[in-house]
């Protein structure tokens, strides 16, 4: 029986005085006990579909036509009060950000209890018992302690488990999971996905699983809908879509994602960005045409209809047969500079954070323990590990943002461990850092031109005309037009801001770039653009880079050598291919097992992650 059926749903927004389509021609049916994956980049309308199901649309947005049948009732036309009764009871939600999904001033117990109270689970003691059972079902131990905790005392993975427990408390018929694992570490992601799948198959829940990760969706979903600018691009059985994509967008998404196994290949970088709300209205024809490698004149004339590829597999493309021909540019590794002399050496780095509670109680926590490695000229070295593994602290130590407790740092033949003025000057001219979140790393009150030449301004002795021409040169190098120098960061997209952040680091022409998670949080197509940019810069400028990331596939694509960190220590290091193909440490194996395989026909066994996991989640 179909639990959720969408029939030609369209959502519009009033925007700039006009009506703009946000979701167009959305149709699908989701039987009980099945998982439908909604895949696409940000702005594709995935989350808007989740909000449409709950009918909690942002102001100015409304459903223009179509019907959304849930268990025989049309959610769109249901009176608000009746619909509210369904929410949290028959339709449950799991959010993207588990930490902010729980109220910070109420204990976990109070929040669960409030939910159970609404679901009529009897009196207080019964509700408490039920709450403990629920926490047990999501594999959270120490349930009784947990009930008295506040959300900030829990890790993101634990919060997500609590939210999943609440979502399944009422045995819902439909679960909408909106990027439930995006904010979590890879190993935690695998276990959360597994948990949802476990409860889902036990309760025969229909699940709408929203994700940007096509690989993940191919593994866990029965059906996938790929969305582009609010319109379905391709719908069909998960494996078909992954192994035989018919829409160029699906194919490009796949090719722009680096892999963890198989031969290394270059990334396909989709140009530009998905059209925003203001642009969609002006587009005649296929919404993807402007970025499509297979575009022909007919594509820009009319909106492509849904075309059957195979039974149950449709795509909105008029030349699906050409999609297979899309291929990434060939691998150009041969041109890369060869690694030379050691440029940066870390010897026995240790960093201990002390925190004090009250007058007497003090605790010490070693974020980095005895870390030693070298970075050679022209070499890209990756550091991987989960959050809390100390990888960011290593970056901060090397930049001089943090002073190490023990150990030595030698940069370009000079020991800078003392942290004195001369050392710091030396450090600054050789090492520059690019931060994770460009939004907060760029001063919102400065123009791009002055941001990227901050180092020149600080050094003094340059005229503003010199700085402007330097800024324009830097911007052209990172692929932004010279006019961008006059913009403010808020006027740029996320990917463009990260480019500006890179340009700023390149201003002093450093030998070493330290990049801390610089592509996480970006869409795959933007990530591919940035990774290709880094490769191009590497060819042109021959600098060394320390690339910190939790994403193993990105590190595999970019780095020659890799260090695996866990709880402040380097547990394994070596050439990337060797470490990824035959990991020697159990933790590395666990990390690799947690990544959904590139081939959807391979059975994903994230249980491999079990080896290392107990230590990681033992934060209570």
């Amino acid at each position: 029986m179909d639990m959720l059926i969408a029939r030609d749903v369209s959502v519009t927004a009033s925007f700039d005085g006009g009506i703009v389509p946000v979701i167009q021609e959305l149709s699908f049916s989701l039987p009980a006990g099945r998982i439908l994956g909604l895949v696409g980049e940000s702005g594709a309308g995935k989350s808007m579909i989740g909000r449409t199901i709950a009918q909690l649309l942002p102001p100015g947005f409304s459903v223009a036509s179509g019907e959304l049948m849930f268990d025989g009732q049309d959610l769109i036309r249901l009176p608000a009060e009746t619909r509210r009764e369904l929410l949290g009871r028959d339709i449950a939600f799991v959010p993207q950000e588990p930490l902010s999904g729980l109220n910070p001033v109420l204990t976990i117990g109070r929040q669960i209890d409030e939910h159970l109270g609404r679901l009529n689970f009897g009196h207080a003691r019964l509700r408490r018992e039920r709450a403990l059972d629920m926490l047990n079902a999501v594999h959270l131990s120490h349930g009784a302690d947990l009930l008295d905790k506040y959300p900030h005392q829990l890790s993101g993975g634990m919060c997500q488990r609590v939210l999943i427990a609440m979502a399944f408390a009422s045995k819902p018929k439909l679960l909408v999971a909106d990027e439930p694992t995006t904010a979590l570490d890879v190993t935690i992601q695998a276990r959360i996905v597994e948990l949802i799948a476990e409860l889902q198959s036990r309760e025969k829940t229909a699940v709408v699983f929203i994700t940007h990760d096509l690989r993940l969706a191919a593994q866990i979903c029965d059906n996938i809908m790929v969305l582009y600018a609010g319109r379905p691009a391709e719908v069909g059985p998960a494996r078909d879509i992954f192994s035989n994509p018919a829409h160029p967008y699906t194919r490009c998404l796949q090719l722009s994602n680096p892999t963890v196994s198989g031969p290394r290949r270059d990334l396909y970088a989709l140009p530009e960005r998905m059209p925003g709300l203001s642009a969609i209205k002006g587009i005649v024809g296929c919404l993807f045409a402007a970025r499509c490698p297979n575009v022909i004149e007919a594509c820009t004339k009319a909106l492509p209809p849904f075309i059957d590829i195979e039974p149950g597999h449709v795509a909105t493309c008029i030349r699906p047969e050409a999609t297979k021909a899309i291929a990434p540019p060939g691998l150009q590794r041969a041109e890369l500079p060869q690694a030379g002399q050691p440029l940066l050496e870390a010897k026995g780095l240790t960093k201990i954070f002390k925190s004090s509670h009250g007058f007497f109680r003090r605790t010490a926590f070693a974020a980095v323990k005895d870390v030693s490695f070298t970075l050679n000229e022209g070499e890209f070295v990756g550091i991987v590990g989960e959050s809390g593994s100390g990888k960011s602290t290593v970056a901060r130590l090397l930049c001089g943002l943090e002073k190490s407790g023990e150990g030595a740092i030698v940069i370009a033949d000079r020991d800078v461990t003392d942290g004195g003025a001369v050392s710091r000057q030396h450090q600054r001219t050789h090492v520059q850092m690019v931060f994770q979140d460009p939004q907060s790393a760029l001063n919102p009150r400065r123009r791009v031109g002055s941001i990227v030449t901050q180092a020149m301004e600080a050094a003094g002795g340059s005229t503003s005309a010199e700085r402007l021409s330097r800024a324009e040169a830097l911007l052209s190098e990172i692929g932004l037009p010279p006019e961008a120098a006059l913009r403010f960061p808020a006027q740029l997209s996320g990917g463009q801001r990260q480019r500006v952040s890179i340009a700023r680091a390149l201003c002093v022409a450093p030998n070493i770039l330290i990049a801390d998670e610089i592509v996480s949080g970006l869409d795959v197509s933007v990530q591919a653009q940035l990774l290709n940019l880094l490769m191009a810069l590497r060819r042109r400028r021959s600098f060394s880079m320390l690339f910190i990331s939790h994403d193993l596939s990105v590190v595999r694509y970019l780095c020659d050598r890799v260090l695996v960190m866990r709880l402040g220590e380097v547990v394994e290091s070596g050439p990337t291919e060797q470490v990824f193909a035959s990991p020697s440490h159990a933790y590395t194996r666990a990390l690799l097992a947690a990544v959904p395989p590139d081939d959807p026909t391979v059975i994903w066994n994230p249980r491999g992650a079990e080896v290392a996991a107990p230590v990681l989640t033992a934060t209570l």
Partner: protein
Amino acid sequence: MMTGVLPLVGRRLVASVFILLIVSFLLFVVLHVLPVDPAAMSVPPNATLAEIEAKRVEMGLDRPLYVQYGIWLGQVAHGDFGTSIHFRRGVLGLVMATLPATIELALLSMIVATVLGLAGGLLLFHTRGTRTEKAIDFGSILLLSTPEFLWALFFILMFGVALPLLPFTGRLDPNMSLPAGTGFLLFDSLYAGRPDIFWSAVRHLIMPSLALGIAFSPTIMRVLRSSFLDVYQEDYIHLARLRGLSERRILLRHALKNAILPTLSLMGVQFGFLFGGTLLVEVIYSYPGLGNLMVDAVRNADLPIIQAVGLAYCVVVLMINTIVDSLYLVLNPKLRLR
């Protein structure tokens, strides 16, 4: 719930000692600079220069300033705040007789400001994006830009003179006498079983506390509204809706407790200003509190009283800040130590 409150109060007490020392020294220095001669004021008007000089030596005024401060501090430490030059009475007694009146007025005004502020803030938030919001917003700006003494005068004209509904001088009707006790009239009258005195005291407090409270409410309104707007952007509010909770429950159970936090720290600061603001209102309503005592003391250059009243204001403000911060700690689990 109380974890961390006691250490906080302890730390505040230690800090308060230093703050009080600094404030008292500043008071001492500033008053020393005033062109008045306490010795000349402490002797009969027909005293000779020699007699004044003798008094000066007796009072220790010929010694260096820091020695004088030391002497004064030593006496204060023993509870001796000196004798009023004008009233010829112990300063401590004078201050203790007027302080409760002022605290009563300030507390009542704060209650008025809080009730109006919270109600106005909720109303502003509830009507967000409508014309009603704009109207209330305009009203709140009008309240914000009218100082408390204008309200005081306006109320006297309205409810004292044009419509003589309420009394507007003193704390009690002239035919009543203060019951003995703590000095807090509302409390003492109820304790003594005298509802007539209680009622009279309330009637006398209505106009001054309204004048003060109204003047301080709009800031609370506006901060509460903006923190509500912030809180409603949070994921947990959205998720509470997705769990099917009613809007009313989301507002009162989930949003209010989060939105009240910034408002609360503002109210702590506000109360300090409000306590200072009682001065003008007390003078306008001839309300026998600390403010009137202070004004008289300044007019008479009654240095011991000015010093003691200045310190009293300081102590009260420090106490209020400690209470507000403790409350903040209790309400915000993130600040509590694990």
